[in-house]
């Protein structure tokens, strides 16, 4: 009798357990988690497999050829210098800009705040090509102006040098540092600085010993992001590096994959090496963080008093504005000017004025027309999928679910962009989707899913559990409570996450360069195809992409100002 009761109660407990774990929301959540994990791990393992296999059997030949190669060892060093230099450069630009905008009484602040993140919406490839048009020897617009004013030719900067690569990469990736620094500075308790001032620290000592140190953890996160991005970027290395003979790992991998004779094993081995370099950057960050592990003290209910710069505020304004001039205005102006010329001779001539370039890339030239459509289709599809998955995933409130998500989201960030493109190629090379836009959409979703997830997650955190739970208690099903309560609350967040993801995807270059085929070119690929052929058409096409992105950004700004959200990267 007793045994019977025990058995039946355990049976009912089992039933309850299944009923609990079979709740549809959990089921959906775990299905998506597994899907994403497979989508990341499968390409990764395929390329590891490729690195250790040749003609179907185990081999270390790929690694061996790295050692034998005449220039790859130098290229590894170049990659490290390029990435480390750009990280420091982006920090040196982004952090002061953030400090000026967030903590001082610089004039026209709101205006500057918008301008400072615009480079995020302009592809670094576009920026590099624009600066190339400005600075190439002899035919560059700025070069000509400077030589006309008697500037000695020896002192002109060499736009193809590794230094130029670092500087331009720094300029166009500094918005990442800027955003991290601004967010961190905004939430810092300003009395940390004020107390230092009172106790004898000058303004500079306070900035150095308090502000930068207290915000150190956030700055390190931004730096490691820029470092990994730079290890995996093809933008500047293609636009400037190849022409100057400065190869980095990303360009070498791409060359090995794209040109005859291909060497897939060596490319895959170099991919592992690039991940090791990126991983070292992450390790260094973790080490530095570990020594100074502290939670940033946030100031609740304190008015952050802006630092009065006195007459120095115009100096600050000048600094921020010169950044905007270099990163936004000059590139756009030169591209527009070049786009409006029959051919480009280094200087704008009225009698060469034409609208043909714009007309042809928009309406006549097959590849560019196709690319616009492809970009719009692939990027909006990918953004939609990413946002949809993020909305499902951000619903979990279980600890385990959240930390698992943290990991899933981190993994793609840690893989350098070009390496990720290579991995996806390895994963699908013999499948039917290989020659289609789907492979690009896949790479977009998996590689940039974290953008949408972070944006939505931060909105989700601000919505109270109780709202949703009370709906459930009052008898709503999971789907009803999601649709009636959660989605409407998330809606503005979802929309801005979508726009953000869309923009970053449209300018994505490094992984899609591995995945396009004849017919599936997207806009950034066409930049590369036009690069050495027709600079006026290229300029026109770049203007079109940039205008498209700026429009999306303007919408984004409007929405996020209304909902007082910030851009998350």
């Amino acid at each position, binding site marked *: 009798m007793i045994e019977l009761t025990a058995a039946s109660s355990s049976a009912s407990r089992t039933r309850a357990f299944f009923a609990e774990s079979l709740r549809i929301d959990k089921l959906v959540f775990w299905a998506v988690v597994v899907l994403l994990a497979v989508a990341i791990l499968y390409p990764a393992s395929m390329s590891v497999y490729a690195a250790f296999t040749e003609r179907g059997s185990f081999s270390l030949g790929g690694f061996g050829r790295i050692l034998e190669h005449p220039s790859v060892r130098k290229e590894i060093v170049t990659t490290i210098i390029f990435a480390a230099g750009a990280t420091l450069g982006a920090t040196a630009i982004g952090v002061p800009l953030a400090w000026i905008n967030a903590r001082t009484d610089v004039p026209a602040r709101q205006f500057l705040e918008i301008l400072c993140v615009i480079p995020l919406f302009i592809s670094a490839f576009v920026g590099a090509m624009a600066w190339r048009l400005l600075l190439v020897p002899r035919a560059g617009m700025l070069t000509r102006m400077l030589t006309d004013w008697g500037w000695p030719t020896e002192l002109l900067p060499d736009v193809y040098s590794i230094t130029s690569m670092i500087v331009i990469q720094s300029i166009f990736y500094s918005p990442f540092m800027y955003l991290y620094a601004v967010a961190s500075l905004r939430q810092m308790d300003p009395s940390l600085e004020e*107390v230092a001032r*009172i*106790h*004898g*620290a000058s303004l500079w000592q306070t900035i150095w010993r*308090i502000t930068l*140190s207290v915000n*150190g953890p956030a700055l390190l996160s931004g730096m490691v992001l820029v470092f990994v991005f730079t290890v995996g970027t093809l933008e500047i290395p293609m636009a400037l590096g190849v022409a100057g003979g400065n190869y980095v790992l990303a360009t070498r991998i791409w060359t090995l994959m794209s040109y005859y004779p291909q060497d897939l094993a060596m490319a895959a081995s170099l991919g592992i090496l690039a991940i090791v370099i990126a991983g070292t950057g992450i390790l260094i960050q973790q080490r530095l963080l570990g020594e100074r592990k502290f939670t940033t003290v946030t*100031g609740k209910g304190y008015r952050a008093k802006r630092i*009065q710069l006195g007459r120095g505020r115009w100096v600050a304004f000048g600094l921020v504005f010169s950044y905007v001039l270099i990163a936004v205005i000059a590139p756009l102006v030169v591209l527009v000017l070049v786009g409006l010329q029959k051919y480009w001779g280094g200087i704008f001539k009225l009698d060469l004025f034409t609208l043909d370039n714009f007309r042809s890339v928009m309406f006549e030239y097959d590849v560019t027309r196709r690319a616009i459509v492809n970009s719009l289709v692939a990027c909006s599809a990918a953004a939609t999928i990413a946002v949809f998955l993020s909305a499902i995933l951000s619903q979990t409130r279980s600890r385990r679910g959240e930390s698992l998500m943290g990991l899933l989201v981190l993994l793609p960030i840690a893989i350098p962009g070009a390496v990720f493109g290579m991995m996806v190629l390895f994963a699908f090379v013999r499948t039917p989707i290989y020659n289609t836009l789907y492979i690009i959409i896949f790479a977009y979703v998996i590689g940039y899913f974290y953008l949408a997830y972070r944006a939505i997650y931060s909105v989700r955190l601000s919505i109270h559990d109780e709202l949703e739970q009370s709906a459930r208690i009052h008898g709503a099903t999971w789907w009803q409570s999601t649709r009636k309560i959660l989605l409407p609350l998330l809606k503005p967040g979802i929309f801005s996450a979508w726009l953000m993801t869309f923009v970053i995807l449209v300018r994505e270059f490094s992984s899609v360069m591995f995945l396009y085929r004849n017919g599936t070119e997207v806009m950034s690929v066409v930049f590369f195809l036009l690069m050495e052929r027709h600079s006026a058409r290229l300029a026109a096409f770049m203007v079109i992409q940039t205008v498209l992105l700026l429009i999306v950004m303007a919408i984004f700004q409007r929405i996020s100002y209304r909902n007082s959200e910030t851009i998350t990267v």
Partner: protein
Amino acid sequence: MAAFVAVEGLRKTFGQSWAVDDVNFEVEEGKLLVLLGPSGCGKTTTLRCVGGLEQPEHGRIVIDGEDVTNAAKGLFLQPNVRGMGMVAQSYAIWPHMNVFENVAFPLRMQKFGKSEISERVREALNVVRLGELGGRNATDLSGGQQQRVALARAIVGRPKVLLFDEPLSNLDAKLREEMRYLLKDIQREIKITAIYVTHDQAEAMALGDELLVMNEGRIEQRGSAKSLYCEPRTRFVADFIGVANLLEGTLVGESANGEDTLEVKLGSGDTSRILKVLRGSAETRRDITILIRPEWVRILSGQPESENNVIRGFVDKCQYLGDRTEVLVNTEYLTMRAWIDGAAEFEDGQEIFMEIDGGKCIALPAN
């Protein structure tokens, strides 16, 4: 004796209205002045002006005989050269430094030698009774300990003036009381000149050699805790400090025999009554407010012998609070509070007579 800190004609605006509007005060060397007032009255702004964290539009601030702010001359010294110490409301412990480094910071800024720094940091930590915690991570400490680190940091450089902005308001009630005594001890021990901002009147009365009550950017009254409590000059001060029964009445006469008392009539017709109270700051105007503290009331047992200074009422509620009993009494004029030592029992609705202590109750100008 010349004042060690002098503030003259201080005015500061944020946009439209004056946050601080013509504030004047002095602090003598080694004394602690408390700025007291409701939220938003301009206490913090005044303190920040003294520290050099805000630049006032008008006024002059002198510390130890030296002008640190003089708006008329366009003089404004940066905070780091004013020789101050400060304890902020949020403790403002730097999270990237341990306790020792936090406390050593002001000394490092003054370029002290290594051995002197460790000597003086140890001394300062001993003063705040945190002797052994130097190596600890500052943010691992409890709120009370963090506040003591902040205090050690503020005194270690032997500043001329110590500034406190509601340093205890983030602590729980018991700890707050403990810290209050510690602060008082330390301030006496090292004889430092200090300005202390708070909106907690118990804290203010316990700590301050002198109190300054502010309201809407202006100084309402200045004096010792006792004088503010017993002889407030305005209705605002009477109400803000302690518990107050404020009765409105009209002046009917002044005492004939030279004593400084007024006769004030409450109510009109049948229920009117005359109270004799101290003149206080009341002008000889018709409308008078009388301040009656709850402990200045005696509840009579049975009928009064005379009508002098007696108010009739009915018990509304009665609360036993341990050291005293608080009785809420409905009178014809308003519901009054009366405090009786120890325990006392009344029935709700019971008729009682209260005798008002005419030697303590005081007349104020009515608003």
